[in-house]
């Protein structure tokens, strides 16, 4: 029987194009004080894969028009289960999370369950071409909900969203006049920035790693409260600390202007996502400050002003889509890629605030995860992406990077500076 083929959507192609900048993997780690029922999890995973065919498809980079081919698979290709000593868990999880799934692989998602004592750590890695952080979070909540229903009520876990993966679904809830206007926003939104993160020189020993920094709940709540005084969101506060820390770390002159791209979820334009398939709906909001400012509070003001300018735009994040779509339509894929590469400039500094990981929705059999985080792709130097997730008001900042020990030290120093600057923001401007 001939294998089924799926259309490669605009964002699938775009994320494939990002192969020069990152490894396209999205990572999730959740730790439970509970032993996950592997048989139930296997059933849920297979049912989900059956309902979301792109997860067991391989991407074909056809020069004219790329596509996904739906493959047969076995659960062993997806799920890894290991019993680990408590002392080895961190290394095992790190090694699992930093794996790379090639787009040509049979499956596009890997799940790992690591038992250590009475605890389990659930790790999931997936190809960003299939879905972004927003949908991945939704996928994980759905996975947990279906797992619980399957064990408690024997309900077959097929309550999964399915539908169009097209980028155009973001226009579905617009008024016809707004839809027409949004579909005609032919604008190249890329802004180039000459600054670079001060990574060490690349070496042959460079490998993928995830550096994390945990900001405790009490500090996070203070950041939130203090932010309100300045009209700043959590995102603005982290962004300001990010800006200031880069100036300090790299020693850039305070009069220089800088730009950090922040990921925005385009689902904000949709009233309901239940009728859409799992896909990517993410764009960049370019936060630009004219100078560092005399202190972190001045940087915060600039960040808030820049972010607010973006938020006032009712077509926030939609400006580059028609141009990208046109780029892929007018020529064969191979030629389109080359043309888009000329016009596209990947942000050297980026931030993705993935948001709250809701423990109640990620609970398995009433056991809420005790720790966890989600992070974006492993970026190749000189690109850097700071991911932020919160769980029970604990903020986890993470940077996934392909580098060496020296890079790890630099990133840890960067985290120290971010923490220091967040502390300054909390302390106030008195």
């Amino acid at each position: 029987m001939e294998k089924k083929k799926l259309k490669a959507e605009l964002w699938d192609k775009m994320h494939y194009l990002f192969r020069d900048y990152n490894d396209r993997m999205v990572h999730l780690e959740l730790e439970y004080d509970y032993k996950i029922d592997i048989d139930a999890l296997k059933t849920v995973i297979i049912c989900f894969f059956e309902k979301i065919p792109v997860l067991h498809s391989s991407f074909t980079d056809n020069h004219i028009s790329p596509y996904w081919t739906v493959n047969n698979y076995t659960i062993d290709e997806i799920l890894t289960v290991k019993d680990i000593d408590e002392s080895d868990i961190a290394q095992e999880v790190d090694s699992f999370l930093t794996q790379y799934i090639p787009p040509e692989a049979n499956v596009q998602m890997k799940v790992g369950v690591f038992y250590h004592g009475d605890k389990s750590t659930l790790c999931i890695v997936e190809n960003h071409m299939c879905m972004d952080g927003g949908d991945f979070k939704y996928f994980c909540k759905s996975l947990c909900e279906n797992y619980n229903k399957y064990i408690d009520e024997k309900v077959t876990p097929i309550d999964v969203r399915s539908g169009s993966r097209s980028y155009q679904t973001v226009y579905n809830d617009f008024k016809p006049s707004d839809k027409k206007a949004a579909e005609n926003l032919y604008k190249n939104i890329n802004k180039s920035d000459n600054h670079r993160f001060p990574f060490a020189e690349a070496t042959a020993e460079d490998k993928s790693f995830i550096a994390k920094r945990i900001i405790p709940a009490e500090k996070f709540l203070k950041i939130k409260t203090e932010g309100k005084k300045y009209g700043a969101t959590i995102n603005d506060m982290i962004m300001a600390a990010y800006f200031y820390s880069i100036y300090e770390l790299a020693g850039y002159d305070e009069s220089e202007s800088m730009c950090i791209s922040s990921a925005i979820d385009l689902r904000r334009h949709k009233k309901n996502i239940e009728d859409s398939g799992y896909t990517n709906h993410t764009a960049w909001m370019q936060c630009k400050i004219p100078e560092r400012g005399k202190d972190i509070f001045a940087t915060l003001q600039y960040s808030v002003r820049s972010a607010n300018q973006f938020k006032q735009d009712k077509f926030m994040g939609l400006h580059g889509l028609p141009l990208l779509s046109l780029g892929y339509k007018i020529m064969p894929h191979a030629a389109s890629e080359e043309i888009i590469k000329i016009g596209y400039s990947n942000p050297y500094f980026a931030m993705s605030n993935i948001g709250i990981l809701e423990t109640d929705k990620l609970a398995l059999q009433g056991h809420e995860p005790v720790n966890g985080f989600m992070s974006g792709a492993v970026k190749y130097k000189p690109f850097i992406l700071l991911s932020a997730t919160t769980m029970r008001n604990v903020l986890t900042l993470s940077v996934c990077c392909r580098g060496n020990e020296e890079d790890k030290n630099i990133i840890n120093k960067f985290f120290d500076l971010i923490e220091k600057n967040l502390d300054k923001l909390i302390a106030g401007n008195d």
Partner: protein
Amino acid sequence: MKRIMEYIDSSLTAFPKSKYSEKFRQNLIEEVTERANDITHAGLSDEKAIEDIIISEHNDIKAEYKEYVKELNASKNKRRNFLIKLFISVIYFLTVLCLYFVISSATKAWSVTWVLPVCSVIVYISVILFIPIATLSKKSTLFVTQTARLILPFIVFNYSTVAFLIFHFVFGFEKSWLVFIAGVVLMFVADGIYVEITAERFAIFFHLLYIVPAFTMLYIIFAVLNIIPWGIGWVMIPGSLVIVLAVIVIRLIMHNRADNSLGEEEPEL
């Protein structure tokens, strides 16, 4: 699988038993069996879950059956249409051949009558070329629709050649080469109509791009045929800019009307 079989049978009870429904049932059973094997191979052992997955994929078997019958009929029609076209083609060429021999024998003008079979072949090829245009134009990829668009001038060129052969060899018209210049104008016209019909996004730019060169060609044709004098006729070329302007104004008015009609929406509840 017993539950799936019952589900299939109960869904098909709404339709009278026929060889169609039996074939559909057999195909469906084969398909769901293969699907169940694939899911089992993936590692799922819970039979109820396998059945639920398959049933969720076939939640409207009645509609699937109707679609199947529709496709069968379409396939039959396609085969019938192909045979009709083949029959018409054979009749066409036989008629042309007969006419060629009859006319040639009657007039003894063998040096001229060869135009008839040659033109007939060119016309036949041009008609056949409309098929890929119609098929490719339905695709959403711009690259593919542009390929269809490229075939169009080729067809116009074919017809120009036919016209040239007739004017030159049959009527002995001295200035028959003008047909090719007229052919270029027709290429512009054909492409302009094509971009309008297919609602191409940048249609207006093509219209504007074609107007001045088309009028230049018309100026040459009219002047060579002494319809207009060479000395004053060139006014046609800058004059065509008026038409360019008119096209822009008409397009703007249409655009504004479309925008206004989009604005007339029902208030949100």
